[in-house]
């Protein structure tokens, strides 16, 4: 790896030695480039139209360029953020230029795969967002910045955890193994952009359709997001510092307090408390208060930027400190970046982007034994105190007949676990670009990413009531991974009269290395263990895991040609071949991914200009392309021996054959091999229309796409009777996504009042068109977990909530359809659940089989968790120094499965429920309400809980409309006037206040309708367990912040 870097660098250095001849020409034109206010603009590119010849204005905005033909040559002045200007050389030898701030979408420069293009010249579907738009939002993951801003990109952030990762889906779920988008940061692939400082981002460009993305071949099926970091632009060095501080509040539920709990027990478990005295001595603990609290977020950021004629630079640093709302939870991240770009003459560019970051997280509520995370801990009792009178953790009061509690003590469980996790990221990219003869340019990138994670976890031994950890343990984990990307791209740019050709050819290779070690020592010195240090005791035992794998290798060849005639007619085609040696089966290591597209700038036609002068531009685009998804995991095509597990527990692999005998470990086949395993292919066609009207104040984009996934990978569940624990991964299914995307914006300035409104909307229809023919054609998944993974111990035990099958969208809710609530016993008696007749107040389920018994054969599709419409609105207003920004996002046409509601309305196991229980029919003096009855009081006074399965079966009572509109972010700022600031040597300063997750308009009865995927043992949770509201999730939060942003 190291050797390769050196080679590549040496290669570039050699070019420096090559001398070039500069040939003087006929006329020199010079001038000064400024913005509208007359401030000099350094760094503007000045280009001779129709050639690649050009230069960059110096630090004072001065330029000087020689033209061949002063009569006909034209000069093009361009710079990011400003509208491109075109002037004739014939105007004179001094041409001063004022650039307008870019008011048009089409003028902007867009980063595309292995290059840039003017938006005007795009033939594929690319959406962009500037870093400026989100830099002060309280987000630490750049992905979140896209929420509500880009049509067709559905971002869901369903957790308020300080290090939560939002989920991102571009143009609908295309596969079971839904890949994340491919992230390319300054030309280098990274697996995750969570460590990038949001404020370092210049722009993010989303390649949405296959023609734009297919240059990334087998990795691009999830879409491609190109992140470009900032660079210095001003000749005068600038220093920026900003800071914000916010308070985070959790959105949590409600549990029955002591009185409510006892009152309910007197109905459902008579005898426990009815005759008890001294009830007033019992505790009244609010376990939600004990486990969740308000928290805070603060963020520091500085940057130092500048540009000189041959170099521009950016140095930045940030530190984000977040407390979680959950007990003992925090996550802090800090980092720095150095970007420099050198330009030697007009023939050589080179530079680098370096970034480092370190995230420190503590989340014992997710890791500790018995310390499961619940947004409402239903399996607790208010009558258990946090602490007993003797100072130990609270336990169940004794002497109440039949009263038992085998659940956990949330506080004690969290407090007995200590964990710290460190994630270090280093990313470096070095590039060189050199102009060659024959209109060729060669660019080479060497990108290196290094990831280092370590974790210390000490689990103290404890015993509270029935639960605990018998022995303490100290776990130390270390993971290192690195990847090295090298690519060589040859670009050809040529204009011959009105024919413009841009072609690239390239080779790219990515290698990866992985190494980890995971050690646990059990029964160690607790004093040392608490400090994450290790001192053994006589009883210490050890566990060790670790592996190394340097096999990762992807090799690709690719090429693309863009042609346009006079910026009117566009044609483009690309092709990429990817070879992947650790992911694809031995028979299928190489995949080929083509694309083609065309566009027509209708507004460039003279007839159009004459007919519709109000339309500034109008472009029609069409494309087709193929993309691959290799989100498979490694070596899934092989069958090997690996440690035997039974029901997921490896301990059962071992056995010995005499008391105290040596335990022999056990191995077993891990799966059935599949040498034909390969990528999934997404075939997508796209039609788009871009336009600007009314002096480009009004702008819009419309897109239609038709996307089909073929050879979809399906983790075919093997029949349990086959006795093989692993599933069989095979290319078997098909999925269709069709949709329309619209973006429309309007911006203008009336005197001092400026506003900018931008609306996005995306309609998508998802359908699985083929799943499997080999076994059965249905994938059942999704559970209403209390503790993730425990299918049996939950309120709807062992019942799946979703089905994925041919002809239906992914993860459709599947259960009994509720027709209503029985109003009288006679009518109800016709329905039997588990042989028991229903009663008034029970849910009436549709009996599909008509046999009077409600069984799993009566299940049907009862909802679709895939939103029909995802939309957003950005409104930015400013008046003199004031600015206000609203960011709305919303979804419509979506169903949610409110699994939490079942826990809120029916006591869970030996635990508690919420006050909503009192709304049940026949409870609390009610007659028949809209809420089904809880159970029935038997003749002997005992209580049968929920015999009809009102709350314990998967049924449509829990399916609700999940449409919502959220004011995601509201920001109000004031920028101080220059006069005031100049006295204190401050160039500009802005203060702002902000609220995140301000309000939600919805009919959904749960805590928050913005739901991602819940846990699923199938491994497809992102696709087959969407829209299930479960107890086992981190609460959503609301943040109120203020901040300041100062430039020196």
């Amino acid at each position, binding site marked *: 790896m190291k050797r390769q870097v050196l080679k590549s660098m040496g290669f570039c250095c050699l070019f420096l030695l*090559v001398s070039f001849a500069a040939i003087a020409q006929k006329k020199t034109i010079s001038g000064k480039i400024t913005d509208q206010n007359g401030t000099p603009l350094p760094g503007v590119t000045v280009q001779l139209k129709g050639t690649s010849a050009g230069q960059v204005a110096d630090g004072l905005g001065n330029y000087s360029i020689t033209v061949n033909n002063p009569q006909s040559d034209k000069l093009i002045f361009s710079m990011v953020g400003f509208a491109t200007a075109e002037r004739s050389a014939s105007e004179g030898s001094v041409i001063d230029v004022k650039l307008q701030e870019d008011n048009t979408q089409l003028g902007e420069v867009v980063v595309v795969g292995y290059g840039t293009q003017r938006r005007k010249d795009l033939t594929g579907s690319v959406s962009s967002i500037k870093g400026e738009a989100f830099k002060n939002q309280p987000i630490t993951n750049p992905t979140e910045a896209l929420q509500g801003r880009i049509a067709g990109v559905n971002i869901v952030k369903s957790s308020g955890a300080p290090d939560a990762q939002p989920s991102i889906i571009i143009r609908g779920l295309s596969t079971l193994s839904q890949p994340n988008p491919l992230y390319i940061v300054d030309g280098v692939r990274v697996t995750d952009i969570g460590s990038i400082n949001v404020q370092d981002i210049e722009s993010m460009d989303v390649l949405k359709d296959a023609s734009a993305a297919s240059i990334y071949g087998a990795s691009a099926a999830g879409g491609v997001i190109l992140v470009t970091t900032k660079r210095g632009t001003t000749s005068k060095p600038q220093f920026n510092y900003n800071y914000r501080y916010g308070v985070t509040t959790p959105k949590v539920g409600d549990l029955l307090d002591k009185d409510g709990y006892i009152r309910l027990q007197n109905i459902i478990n008579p005898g426990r408390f009815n005759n008890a005295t001294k009830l007033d001595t019992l505790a009244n603990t609010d376990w939600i208060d004990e486990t969740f609290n308000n928290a805070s977020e603060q963020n520091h950021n500085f940057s130092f930027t500048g540009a000189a004629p041959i170099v521009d630079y950016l140095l930045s640093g940030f530190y984000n400190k977040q407390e979680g709302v959950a007990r003992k939870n925090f996550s802090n991240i800090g980092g720095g970046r150095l970007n420099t770009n050198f330009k030697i003459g007009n023939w050589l560019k080179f530079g680098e982007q370096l970034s480092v970051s370190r995230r420190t997280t503590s989340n014992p509520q997710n890791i500790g034994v018995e310390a499961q995370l619940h947004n409402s801990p239903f399996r607790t009792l208010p009558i258990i105190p946090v602490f007993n009178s003797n100072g130990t953790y609270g336990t169940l009061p004794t002497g109440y007949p039949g009263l038992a509690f*085998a659940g956990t003590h949330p506080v004690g469980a969290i407090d007995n676990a200590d964990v710290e996790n460190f994630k270090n990221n280093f990313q470096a990219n070095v590039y060189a670009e050199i102009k060659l003869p024959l209109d060729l340019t060669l660019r080479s990138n060497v990108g290196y990413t290094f990831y280092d994670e370590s974790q210390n976890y000490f689990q103290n031994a404890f015993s509270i009531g029935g639960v605990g950890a018998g022995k303490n343990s100290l776990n130390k984990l270390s993971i290192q991974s690195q990847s090295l990307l090298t690519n060589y791209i040859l670009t050809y740019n040529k204009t011959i009269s009105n024919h413009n050709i841009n072609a690239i050819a390239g080779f790219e290779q990515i290698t990866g290395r992985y190494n980890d070690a995971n050690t646990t020592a059990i029964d160690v010195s607790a004093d040392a263990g608490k400090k994450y240090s290790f001192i053994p005791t006589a009883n210490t035992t050890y566990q060790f895991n670790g592996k190394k794998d340097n096999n990762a290798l992807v090799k690709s060849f690719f090429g693309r040609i863009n042609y346009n005639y006079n910026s009117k007619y566009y044609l483009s085609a690309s092709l990429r071949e990817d070879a992947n040696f650790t992911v694809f089966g*031995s028979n299928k290591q190489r995949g080929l991914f083509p694309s083609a597209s065309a566009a027509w700038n209708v507004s460039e036609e003279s007839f159009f200009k004459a007919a519709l002068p109000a339309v500034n531009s109008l472009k029609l685009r069409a494309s087709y392309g193929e993309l691959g998804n290799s989100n498979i995991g490694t070596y899934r095509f092989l069958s090997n021996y690996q440690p035997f597990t039974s029901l997921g527990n490896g301990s059962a692999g071992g056995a010995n054959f005499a008391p105290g*005998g040596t335990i022999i470990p056990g191995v077993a086949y891990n799966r059935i091999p599949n040498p034909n395993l390969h990528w999934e292919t997404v075939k997508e066609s796209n039609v788009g229309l871009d336009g600007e009207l009314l002096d480009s104040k009004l702008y819009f984009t419309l897109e239609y796409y038709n996307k089909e996934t073929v050879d979809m990978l399906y983790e075919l*569940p093997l029949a349990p009777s086959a006795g093989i624990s692993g599933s069989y991964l095979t290319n078997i299914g098909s999925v269709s996504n069709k949709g329309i995307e619209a973006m429309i914006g309007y911006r203008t300035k009336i005197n001092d009042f400026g506003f900018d409104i931008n609306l996005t909307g995306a309609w998508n229809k998802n359908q699985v068109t083929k799943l499997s023919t080999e076994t059965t054609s249905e994938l*059942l998944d999704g559970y209403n977990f209390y503790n993730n993974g425990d299918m049996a*111990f939950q309120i709807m035990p062992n019942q799946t909530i979703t089905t994925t099958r041919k002809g239906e969208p992914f993860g459709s809710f599947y259960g009994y359809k509720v027709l209503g609530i029985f109003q009288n016993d006679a009518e109800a008696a016709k329905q039997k659940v588990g042989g028991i007749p229903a009663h008034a107040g029970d849910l009436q389920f549709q009996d599909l089989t008509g046999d009077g018994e409600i069984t*799993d054969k009566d299940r049907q599709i009862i909802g679709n968790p895939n939103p029909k419409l995802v939309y957003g609105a950005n409104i930015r207003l400013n008046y003199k120094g004031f600015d206000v920004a609203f960011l709305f996002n919303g979804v419509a046409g979506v169903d949610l499965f409110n699994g939490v509601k079942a826990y809120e309305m029916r006591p869970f196991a030996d635990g508690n429920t919420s006050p909503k229980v009192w709304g049940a029919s026949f409870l609390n003096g009610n007659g028949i309400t809209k809420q089904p009855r809880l159970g029935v009081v038997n003749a002997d006074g005992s209580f049968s809980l929920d015999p009809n399965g009102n709350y314990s079966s998967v049924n449509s009572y829990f399916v609700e409309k999940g449409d919502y509109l959220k004011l995601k972010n509201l920001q109000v700022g004031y920028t101080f006037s220059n006069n005031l600031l100049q006295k204190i040597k401050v160039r500009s300063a802005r203060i702002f206040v902000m609220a995140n997750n301000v309000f939600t308009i919805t009919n959904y009865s749960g805590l928050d309708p913005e739901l991602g995927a819940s846990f699923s043992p199938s491994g497809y949770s992102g696709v087959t367990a969407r829209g299930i509201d479960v107890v086992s999730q981190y609460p959503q939060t609301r943040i109120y912040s203020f901040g300041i942003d100062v430039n020196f």
Partner: protein
Amino acid sequence: MLISNQIKLNKMNKSIYTLLLATALIAGCKKDPDMVGPSDQVSTNSYPKTIADLNTILNPAYGNLKSTGLYGFELMPKALENSVHAGDANYNGDGAWNEMTANNLSPNNGKSTNAWVALYAGAGACNTALEAADFFEKTYANGSQKAEIDAVRGQAKFMRAFYYFQLEALFGEAYIKTGGINENKMGVPIYMAVPKSVTETQQPRATTKEVWDFIKSDLKDAVALLDNKVWPSSEIGRANKWSAKALLGKVYVFTEDWANAKTTLLDVINNSGKTLMPFAKYKDAFNGNTANEFNEESLFEMNVDADNKGNYGPWGNIPNASTLNGVIWSPYILSLTGTETGSRPLGYGGNLGVHDKNVTRFGYPLGYYTLVNNPNFDNSKPASFSNPAKIMDPVYRAKAEAVRTNKTADPRLYVNLVQPWLDVLNIDWEGGPRQNVPVSKPDYLASEPNTYGWGFRKYAAIDYHLNIVNYDKWNWYFLRMADVYLLYAEASIGSGDVATGLEYINKVKRRAYDLPINSASPRDYTSLSAATPAINDPVLGTNPLRYERWAELFHEGQWWFDVCRWRLGPQEAAFYGRARNLSTPLTFNEAKSYSWPIPLSEFNSNSKITGQQNPNY
């Protein structure tokens, strides 16, 4: 600043570029690798290389018995002991337990599903071992290793038969009756080899005959393959030919092939060298006394050690030899202040107690006890379990002691259960010193006077707090001579030889009363309808064969099979009447409940089993 706006190169420069470009591309390009694989797994093309390797492949066949879905955790305390009402669940928060108690399962019942999955995982491990044995023999072995390879094959076949035996007994549609009745009913899917393609994983249910024939054939092969194998003491827990013969005999009894049952079982009785252990050992043979493990009575036994290697019993990934049944059915000891209120469970507590009806079923004739003020209470000291303020009524206590001494009740009552106040356990409570503490009623029964509130003793933690250490320490018997004697008795009776039948029933009974097993005694049953110790028990009261199988094998996971093959469901439900975790009286649906449902997950992944669910599910 000097800038050239156009670049021109001479020919030499051009060729340098071409050269450099070519060099860079070649240098940067890594050669395509040959077949790559993960370095933390071993390839099926090069393993096993040694007998030891082969044993690591065989090992899961045994280890899997400790699966959390089998004897490691769930199958006994959460499934079978609720099904047969040996246990009475106080905990009603898990629907799957409640369904087990009600003998009315859903096809998605987690306990039956896990049993299915884990039993087939075990059978799959046996197939893998058989295949690996062939591979090893062909590829790496030398001729002298044939016997060792065959021993592996023999064990794999025995274990495969053992898994299929349980699969068929739990999930088969019906037991085969004398004369081939039910032979064409649905058995379970059969896998004779590791499936190599998805198609091979699609198997319909075989007939009951096919399944039992498969089991018998495996056991016969195992007998032949293990014929000369004598395991050293360090491997005493491996199956041998007598394990296979005994199981074969049991299979003949379960399928009512009395003639073959008799010859096979008699062979075991006469030639295995095994017999009944004496009562002195018997009473201390179920609680982890290693001196009494793998004894003269044991034919196949699962070794369990008091060492979980840091796992939570069988939960976790470190190969170990521990289980965790006892945590669910732990007995209670008196509270620190000597009261039943606040009594301390030696496991979770509040989960599974002993069903009171079992106390009288063992012949305990007394009613419930009351607590009275302790005449010896020392006011000057704080109340404690050695100085309790209230004690069991001394009159009652004296009577209870007499029942025990005089063997008025079956002595096995005290092997299986512990009695409040009379039994005293030697316990180190949460790191404290070992102390003798009387057994107590569970806290949850402390305020219910009309309850016995005994605790489990067999397969239970009686000398440590299981919740602190998280492991069971007792071995589990799967086949022992008492079972063989009773099976032989049943086969003899079935083929008309009542006298022999009675004799073998009596041998088992005599041992329970600490009498010489081969001499007639006054305790002997004199007929097949003689009165048994069971009081007011229409099911067992006058049926010595049934009673002895129930009493002798109580709490060992056998009774459910007998209930089903003898079709005692409704009678048993009527006898036990109620269960704490159900609000309705016990019932039994004979048209459905003798077979567990094939799990939904099987239907979801096996197209050939469509329409083959057991009746009435």
